[in-house]
């Protein structure tokens, strides 16, 4: 099911949580809403589910306008951050809940419901735990019960709020892989919210980067990492260094010194580059800084350096070759090899 979000605006007590957000989610896609807390990603997810209603704008499921449909009518599978399993029901009853509350006319027979619940339990690899109560399960098992429960209603769209947020690192990695397989097997349109970029980049077909109630960029992991379209995305995804620069006469200046980068743009800007995208150099215009600390990180060495004049130095991190001299207090001269500039 394709989901189209069109010019959605959401205010809570006059405080805007989302401003004019539009997004097209393709059918069968696994898409991540990624952003820091307060970016509006969970609000957007809840709006798609119908748990919140937009102040303005529309949401389409396929070609149908679902904006005025209730959460029950939208038929979405929602997996809550803390799972919200019904603690007084067994695992089997939890999974069957969505079927047992259907009106008599569309409700399957008891035996059929039991069969479906067993089937779903098998799908999430939890067969044999039918009779357990949620508080007798581990975090990872609860997560999968919640997913099976959401899948029981044969949802058009699967929505997951911080699906791995409450799990420890090891379980998180396993479930992440498992969810990808699960998605590929069932082919549901799936939207999940996360603040963990590694999770989003690894798992999703496309990542929606959000900040302060706006969508900053939508794209594949490669897109958002290699060609970030804003200062926010550049600094939010992966590690980066940034310096305030001035552009004139076709060159980039840092604190009135040319740094060996050419540009057509003019005016003040913020220069961004990744720590590994630098080359050490001994001649020509370049950035230079004093090493304040250095540490070995697997196959590389990370040098922390202060760039710029004393009293107005900027602290950044760059990657230097293992054989480079990066002792404390030594001077390093380098130029970014790949960089972006965003007017400020």
């Amino acid at each position, binding site marked *: 099911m394709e989901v189209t979000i069109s010019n959605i605006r959401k205010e809570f007590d006059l405080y805007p949580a989302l401003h004019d957000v539009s997004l097209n989610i393709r059918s069968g896609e696994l898409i991540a809403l990624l952003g820091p807390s307060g970016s509006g990603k969970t609000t957007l997810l809840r709006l798609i*589910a*119908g*748990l919140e209603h937009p102040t303005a704008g529309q949401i389409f499921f396929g070609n149908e306008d679902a904006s005025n449909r*209730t*959460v*029950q009518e939208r*038929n*979405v*599978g*929602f997996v*809550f951050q*803390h799972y*919200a*399993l*019904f*603690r*007084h029901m067994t695992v089997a009853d939890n999974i069957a*809940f*969505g079927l047992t*509350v*259907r009106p008599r006319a569309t409700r399957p027979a008891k035996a059929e419901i039991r069969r479906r619940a067993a089937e779903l339990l098998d799908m999430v690899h939890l067969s044999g735990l039918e009779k357990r*109560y949620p*508080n007798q399960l581990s975090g990872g098992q609860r997560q999968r019960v919640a997913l099976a*429960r*959401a899948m*029981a*209603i044969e949802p058009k769209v699967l929505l997951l709020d911080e699906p791995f947020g409450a799990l420890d690192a090891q379980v998180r990695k396993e479930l992440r892989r498992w969810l990808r397989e699960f998605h590929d097997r069932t082919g549901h349109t799936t939207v999940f919210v996360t603040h963990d970029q590694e999770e989003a980049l690894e798992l999703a077909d496309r990542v929606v980067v959000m900040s302060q109630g706006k969508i900053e960029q939508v794209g594949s992991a490669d897109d958002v990492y290699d060609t970030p379209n804003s200062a926010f995305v550049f600094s939010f995804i992966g590690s980066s260094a940034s310096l305030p620069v001035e552009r004139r006469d076709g060159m980039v200046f840092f604190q009135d010194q040319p740094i060996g980068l050419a540009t057509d743009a003019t005016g003040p800007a913020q220069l961004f580059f990744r720590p590994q995208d630098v080359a050490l150099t001994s001649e020509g215009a370049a950035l230079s800084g004093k090493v304040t600390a250095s540490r070995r990180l697997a196959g590389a060495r990370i040098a922390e350096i202060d760039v710029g004049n004393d009293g107005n130095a900027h602290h950044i991190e760059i990657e230097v070759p293992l054989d480079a001299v990066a002792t404390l207090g030594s001077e390093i001269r380098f130029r970014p090899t790949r960089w972006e500039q965003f007017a400020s």
Partner: protein
Amino acid sequence: MHDNARSPAASARKPETFRDAASETPFVRHLLIFAALAYLAFFLLLPLVSIFVEAFRRGAGAYFDALIEPDALAAIRLTLLVAAIAVPLNLVFGVAAAWAIAKFEFKGKAFLITLIDLPFSISPVISGLVYVLLFGSQSVLGPLLKSHGIEILFAVPGIVLATVFVTFPFVARELIPLMQDQGTGDEEAALSLGASGWQTFWRVTLPNIKWGLLYGVLLCNARAMGEFGAVSVVSGHIRGLTNTMPLHVEILYNEYNFVAAFAVATLLALLALVTLVLKAVLERRFGAEIAASRKH
């Protein structure tokens, strides 16, 4: 020198005398336990025992005579009737109020919580007087209702009203923290799975709060049956008609009919004991489930 002074026996004893930093010496421990027990015995157990001793002072015959006497029976019936009206009313109100406060954001919420606490914070006698002012012969409402043949004061409706007023915080107070703690996650999950609001209430919300609700109802019932002050003001003390059990006890006592007074009082004491035992049994039998329903 002190190395030599420590004999092998002393160092072997050492683990036995070792204790946690947070635990007291045996002497202090026993003293504290004794103090608590003595206090309880003096202020709770002794009065309780004395009620039964007084009630049976002239034998079981006199005891049961006092209970089956018509005025006593009328008082018991009236008490049961009042509780049978007040408790269900406050059950419904308590759940509704707790639901509203715990699950919605609205203006005046803090005010509503204060209002719910009001009966706890004012003297029951004042609660009764409020109804006298509202429905008395000097008021606007009283004569109007009377002209339509409806008696509020010095009649059963007044007693019910006063009892409802005094007991309405019990259920709500028990449920509000519980429901606030549980949040709205489960309800949202049920709705997203296609359940209607009604189904969500019966199949998700109610099971989640049932133990808290039961506690609230037990406490509410105990107070509804035992309430004296507010009821005393509005009842008019008409024997066989508007006397509840606590009022009946008072009348008998003032007539120096101690055996009968204490006999009826034993029923109220038994009610309290049954409530306590019921609560303890529930806790023991469903302890794990109660604990599970309290945490998420």
